[in-house]
Each structure stands twice: as C-alpha cells, then as structure tokens.
C-alpha cells in the first residue's frame, strides 16, 4: 500500500517523483502491463516503462507522483466547513493523506 500512498503523499507536498524497489524485475517495471484494451480484446496501450538507478549497489525504480486531483472523496466521522476532519478506527487509512492533498 505504501507505493500508492506515497504517490498521493508526494503529490500533496510537491515532490514530483521518488525511488522505490516495488515492482522491480516485473512486467510493471518493463512497461509491459496492459493499460487499456480494445473492444475486440487486443491490447491498446501498455503502462509506462520505469527508469532505474543504482543507490549503494541496489537498483531502484523511479516512480512519479500523481498529478493533483480536482477532488478528494473522504470519509470522516466529523468534519467542519473549513475542511478539518476527524477520522475513526480503520477509516483513517487513505482518507487522511488524501484529505491533505
């Protein structure tokens, strides 16, 4: 979950990309994962190939942050009109970082 959460968090704080080992040596990293299919079942587009770089002898993938979203749909226990939210229990999960975008 950290990968998606980090892409959201980085978008919120203005970091355009980050390095991660997640997805290394997979079809995801090689840009061979179907992103969109044609109605006849053939592949219309693949995902973007990730750049790699070595740090301390280990290889990492460059993962770009999300673009800023127009809206964040948030579930909170309490909220005010200023946008302050109180979360409860497991609903804290993605709601807190998405609320801070």
């Amino acid at each position: 979950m950290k990968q998606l959460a980090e892409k959201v968090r980085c978008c919120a704080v203005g970091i355009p990309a980050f390095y991660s080992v997640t997805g290394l040596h997979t079809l995801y990293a090689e840009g061979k994962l179907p992103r969109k299919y044609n109605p006849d079942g053939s592949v219309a587009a693949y995902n973007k190939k990730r750049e790699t770089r070595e740090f301390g002898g280990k290889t990492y993938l460059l993962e770009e942050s999300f673009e800023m979203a127009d809206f964040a749909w948030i579930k909170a226990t309490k909220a005010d009109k200023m946008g302050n939210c109180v979360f409860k229990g497991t609903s804290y999960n993605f709601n807190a970082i998405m609320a801070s975008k």
Partner: protein
Amino acid sequence: MVGGFGFSGIPENTIEYVRSQPHITDLKIISTEAGDDNWGLGRLYEKGKISKQWASYIGRAKVMEQAYLSGRTELELIPQGTVSCVFFWYLGEGTAADE
C-alpha cells in the same frame, strides 16, 4: 482521489450521490481498489461513469474487470509496495549542497 481500503472508510454517501447524478461521467479515479459489484466504486462502474483508474487491487469487482477488458476503462495498476527509499529534493537546488 477516493479514500478507503476494502470496505473500510470508503466515502459511500458521496459515491451514492455521484451515482444518482446522470451528468457526472468520465471520472478519473485514484483509489486503492475498485470495490465490489454492488458496493464502493463498483457502484459507479455499474453505471459506466469511470473512464480511468489508478489502483492496486481489482480482485472482487467483476463490473470493473469487464469494463477494463472490454476497453471502456483505462487501468494503471500500482504495485502494493513496501517503504519508499530515496527522494529527489528540489529544496537544495542551485545551492552549495547541490553542487
């Protein structure tokens, strides 16, 4: 961006409201998963309102699977990750630390 993980913490009231608005279509959604056939974002897939999603897991949502495989929806799968490691910072750009 839509919060929640599994059925926990999803904004179900917002989803139901959007589902009831015929003029809201072509949504591009960032959310960790696509819900179920009759709960969560699956409710919007059922109406064909989502044209693209960034997600980590689509396992239970048959309506989403059908939308993806038939080309109605674009899907960017994001692997479920561990901890991110090194960042590109712009804070020190152009300073002695950068050079």
